[in-house]
């Protein structure tokens, strides 16, 4: 299992194109990935679940379980903290 805390980068939070790009990246990993925010845990491969989950500047935790967990957490944390998509 791998886990990382990160800060949401995009101006409007997680939705629209940044959300779609995050999902696309998440689906490339075989690991199960979840985003944890304020005690709520959601499937990181579901655009409906992650949309609106957090705003710019808010902290979220990405947790992955599986063969490529380390890589998944690293890639996704970096993607969601970037402010340009």
């Amino acid at each position, binding site marked *: 299992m791998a886990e990382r805390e990160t800060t949401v980068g995009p101006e409007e939070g997680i939705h629209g194109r940044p959300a*779609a790009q995050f999902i696309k990246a998440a689906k490339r990993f075989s690991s199960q990935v979840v985003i944890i925010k304020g005690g709520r845990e959601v499937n990181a491969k579901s655009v409906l679940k992650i949309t609106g989950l957090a705003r710019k500047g808010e902290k979220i935790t990405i947790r992955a379980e599986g063969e490529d967990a380390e890589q998944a957490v690293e890639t996704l944390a970096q993607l969601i903290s970037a402010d340009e998509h």
Partner: protein
Amino acid sequence: MKLTGIAASEGVAVGPAFVPASGRPEAERYRITQDEVEPELQRFKKAAEAVAGKLAETGEELRVSGHEEEAGIFEFHVEMAEDPELASAVEERIGNLESPEAAVLAVGEEYAAELAAMDEYMAARADDVRDVAGQISARLMGKGFSGLETLETPSIVLARSLAPSDTARIKEGIALGFVTAEGSRTSHVSIMARSMGIPAVVGVGAALEGALGAEEVALDGSEGYAIVDPGEDTVAQFQKKSAALIEERAVLEEYRHVEASTGEGRRIEVAANLGSASEAEDALEWGAEGVGLFRTEFLFMQRDDLPSEDEQYEAYSAVARAFGEKPVIIRTLDVGGDKDLPGVDQASEQNPFLGWRGIRMSLDTPELFGPQLRAILRAAAHGHLKVMFPMVADVGELEAAKAMLQECLGELESEGKRVGEVEIGVMIETPAAAICAAGLAKESDFFSIGTNDLVQYTLAADRGHERLRRLQNADHPAVLALIQQTCEAANAAGIPVGVCGEAAGEPEMIPKLIRLGVTELSMGAPSIPRAKKVVSEL
């Protein structure tokens, strides 16, 4: 009855009117039997896949035609149609003997309600969810809730507005044109119409209400009007216009990839003006022989910080690679007080077009100019790049810019970075530059005349002023005299002159520009075939 609006996409069409129904679909049945569970699960899966596939296809078409932002909406919709949580919620309901068409609407509504409760940004996303769920449901019922999906007769679509998902639902070749009450040239429906190559008139306003019962519509997207229930004469007239247009397009098609020369054998290079690297492929398809103006402003807009040297390097390399050996002229940043730049202290100005902009700003802010020049020099290793400075008014500015470029080159070399050679040019857009062209020519490898600004500055007429149309024209003796002076100076120094303003694509201006000595024309890519034809017929 005549509807007048904005000419949003050129062309003419005559055909039956179609008005899509508004509102949400309603499930035809709600319950299924235990035996039906397995096949209905399969049916749901297939319908969701089909909807996602269609959305992805539309998104890709938009991306290829350079509409990144519009494509982004579809990317989001595709992910929703493929959403694993949506699928499992629907499957659970089907397991409980709910019909898939009812289940997907119910689940969509649950998610939409959640999003709508958040804030206004998310409320718009709620409509996206309802929309995608509605599409899957409609697909399951084998019909469309607006009727657009099942429309079989080629028709002209009349609607208050048309959303991305509406236009995406229409089968290929079925929409002959669009007429909408709302919208502008940059609305989704206008962009779609242009990429589909069909005419559109948008923003006709409340008058549309009176036309919703129409049977037939004649549409002129070049002039911006539609005739509702036209008489025989009008139909005949429109058919004639349409035939002439189709013929013209077919003729122009032959000119796309020719290398245009005049009757005297003077070779004229026809290039494209680009606003971002994503437009490169489209421009090549239109037959661009290079890029006469690559605007770099897009990299700097709509963000909180300045783009890094590496980010700029990627963008410039992308366009350099796309064009290979063909030349690409990169214009350094040209913004002024009318647009905010992050991290640059710009006072608001009374006359931004006469203010601190272009090369003036660049020379004063090395932290802005340096990384841009370095990025251009590095990207030049991947293709044939040239650099051009905007708003130059005297030789001193050009010398200072060249010194800065030289300094960047020295830095990069001592850092061991790979660089390429770049030619250096001046954008001739101030009357001062045209008048001092002889001096500038000695220090330059090429000139490019920016006619839009040259006209504005020479005739002292604001480019955007509606009442000054008469003075927004390059075909004015004063402007032509400056172009001539520029060409003579360039000719004496043995350097080429291009034109990258709107005049370069205007059939009536092209012969005049060439006669004055211009050897390269750069324009919006769709105008390229016509310009090549005009040149070839000289």
